[in-house]
């Protein structure tokens, strides 16, 4: 199953806000996925297919091999939907069942 990590500094605020919205969005779209909010330190040791983070986390995500989605407005459903679905579709196209 596709693994999505939402990343923020502490894994306790913005990453959770992102995770809640992405879970709901992907459930609506019927996309199977595991969405986990994590802090930066734990993220370094985990595997993820897609990483979603607030824009300003970018400097900490430069070496990430997964697809990285950067979000400016964490309560803008349209921005999150557009950016996340684009990455999800690209990932699914590369990994057909």
């Amino acid at each position, binding site marked *: 199953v596709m693994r999505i990590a939402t990343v923020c500094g502490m894994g306790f605020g*913005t990453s959770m806000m992102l995770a809640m919205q992405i879970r709901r969005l992907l459930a609506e779209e019927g996309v199977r996925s595991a969405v986990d909010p994590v802090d930066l330190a734990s993220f370094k040791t985990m595997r993820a297919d897609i990483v979603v983070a607030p824009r300003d*986390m970018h400097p900490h995500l430069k070496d990430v091999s997964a697809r990285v989605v950067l979000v400016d407005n964490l*309560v803008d459903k349209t921005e999150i939907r557009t950016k996340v679905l684009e990455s999800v579709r690209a990932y699914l196209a590369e990994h057909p069942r």
Partner: protein
Amino acid sequence: MNSAPGDLNEILHRSMVRARLKAASWEEAVEQAGRLLVDAGSCESRYVSAMADAVREIGPYIVVAPGVAMPHARPEQGVRRPAVAVVTLERPVEFGHRANDPVDLVIAFAALDKNAHLVTLQSISHLLMNQESLARVRAADSDQELWAGLGIAPSTHGTKE
């Protein structure tokens, strides 16, 4: 109306909102909101320093939406009980965020239990998505108007006051 642990009507009280506070910098804005948490007995003062340290060390990613910052730190950095404080600023301050500066609304929180905290974050997200109440909160000239703008229903659990 029923409320779950973590709902804003459980952990955000009238005493935790301030309209049009003066802050000359983002540090002062975080301090102002943090002091409300400390004064309410929600956390130790080191929690407030930890909120600012997080911004210095990791960046201004806590500026979650245009004009809105949500400072916080970890539960083990001095939280005693969960609470939320809401502050609007007389003059907006810069956090150094590329897209969402300047900030005029600061929502600081202290969390303990993960499930209750999720409910809190959900309530805050709903508030931030509601353009009408957001506009009322931003336009509030007094603490009373700010509280009214938040549109928080009275708690059914009969917590304090």
